[in-house]
């Protein structure tokens, strides 16, 4: 019961602020609503007892990426953006795609309603004490079963980082 309340609260906040993020004209306001969305999503993670993903979401997305977003937005002249056309002509296409996606999700939820633990009805969450500690579990998976892909991803990120540094250097 309580779980449901919490879930719908976070979900509601996430969707509402996502909508506001898209429609706000002021970029800083949009950023603030994006932050709220991300935080609400993090809340849902926490409610699902995925503590590590919860905190990763906060540290990486909210604490890291969004700070840089806001940082950049602050330096841009906002009064120009205010006078520009907010949505391009593709908005009807976008609406169409969104509706199609919503339909797809709805159909999936509906069709899987019989499978236990899925569908519209939320399962009763497992008490945290009975779950394996998920940080350790995640680490075990990453560094044991999926070591190679993990390392490949790391190298890829490193390459991207070096590339970014080189590109930034060139300009000055």
């Amino acid at each position, binding site marked *: 019961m309580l779980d449901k309340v919490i879930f719908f609260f976070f979900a509601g906040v996430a969707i509402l602020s996502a909508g506001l993020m898209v429609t706000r004209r002021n970029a800083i306001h949009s950023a603030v609503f994006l932050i709220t969305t991300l935080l609400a999503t993090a809340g849902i993670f926490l409610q699902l007892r995925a503590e590590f993903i919860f905190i990763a979401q*906060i*540290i990486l997305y909210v604490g890291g990426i969004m*700070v840089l977003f*806001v*940082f950049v937005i*602050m330096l841009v002249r906002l009064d120009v953006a205010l006078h520009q056309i907010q949505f391009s002509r593709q908005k009807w296409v976008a609406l169409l795609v969104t509706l199609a996606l919503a339909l797809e999700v709805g159909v999936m939820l509906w069709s899987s309603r019989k499978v236990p633990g899925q569908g519209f009805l939320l399962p009763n969450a497992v008490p945290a004490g009975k779950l394996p500690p998920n*940080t350790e579990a995640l680490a075990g998976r990453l560094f044991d079963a999926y070591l190679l892909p993990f390392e490949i991803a790391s190298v890829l990120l490193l390459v991207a980082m070096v590339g970014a540094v080189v590109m930034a250097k060139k300009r000055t």
Partner: protein
Amino acid sequence: MSPTLQAVLAFVQTWWVELVSGVVIVAVVPLVAGYIVLMERKLMADMQARLGPMRVGPHGLLQPIADAVKLLIKEDIIPDNADKVVFWIAPVVSMTAALTSMGAIAFGPAFQVARDINVGLLFVIGVSSLGIFGIVLGGWASNSHYSIMGALRSTAQLVSYETAAGLALVSGLLLAGTLKIRAIVDAQQHFGVWFVFLAPVAFFIYVVASIAETNRAPFDLPEAESELVAGYMTEYSGFRWALYFLGEYANMIVVGAVATTLFLGGWLRPFPNVRWMNWLDALPALFTAAVGAYCVYRAGKQPVRVQTWFMWGVALACFVVALILAVPLLVAPLKFLVPGLHGAFWFLLKISAYIYLFMWLRFTLPRYRFDQLMHLGWYILIPLAIVNVLAVGVAMILEMEYGWNRWLAMLLTTVITLATALFLLRLNDKRAAAASSAAPPPEEPSTEDSYAG
């Protein structure tokens, strides 16, 4: 009874400790922050051959309350061109982040809001870093040059130094092998030594980085009053300003608590496993009693009757606390209270010492310049922290796989990191020398005559 009400009741029954602790944090931290400010002013005055606040209450003991009242009834100014909503929300964000992150901190084995969550330490760091939005948004919303420059500076500073602080914490976490706050302290008890002695360099890096993160001198550039007036807080006044201020001091408590937990043995008393040092258990009670006795001594010297009474009151409070700390030691049936109470005492004492260090540095050192600060962060602290993480890892492998003596392995780590530090410093000096020989940058042709004056 409706199911909803039942659920609520069940909720309260399960979580009442957490709820109470949460309320206590929200209620007590602002007061404590106020008294930290008073302590800072008093210490500063003492170091500067002054008296500090003396008017409100004996020795200015009521000053924080007077300040709070003043700030509450002060006019709340919002600049005309400010973005009102963001301006309004920014200080709240700052304060909320600091208070929320306290939720996962264990003030002794008995006092903690969030029962040891799996990612305890990460939670504290991650959530407290959200406070930066308060600064950035506040600076932006004020619509003033000083504010926005202060906000830009603090963003850059926080992002840089959080990296260093995080890496320094990783060194400690490697030793502990867990993120759970309670388990970290238990690990130190198990090792029989505070981690600061095993990873001194990591502790040092964390101290420096945490000073920078809390925007304290010598890294208080975002609010460098001689340059940027008050940085991102320039346009704030009254209670909003107070919220920023509280957030800042709450943040100091948070970083102090993190450092204490990870490096200074948390709520363990010094030498937790040495039997013959058990007399240290009596220290908390004796200490508070001594403070009380001093208050009694001072009470006689107060010029005004009211102040004498007040001093007696403070003394009485100290004696009561001393009694609470002493009784469980002496009365066998209450023995179970000892770890909780004394743990809290030691924990708070260590945080105080940490905050004292912050203040001491603030009164002593000049301020870094922004580029110097960034260089220190990126060219010295972060590489050093990375080397330190690697070295600690190597040392642990040496100990666990090859059976080295722990102290020998850790000594090796420290030596390696210190050598790296020296190398980095040399490199930095060379770079600085090269930069200064190149500076001042080539003079522009005097096309801007209007500025020739």
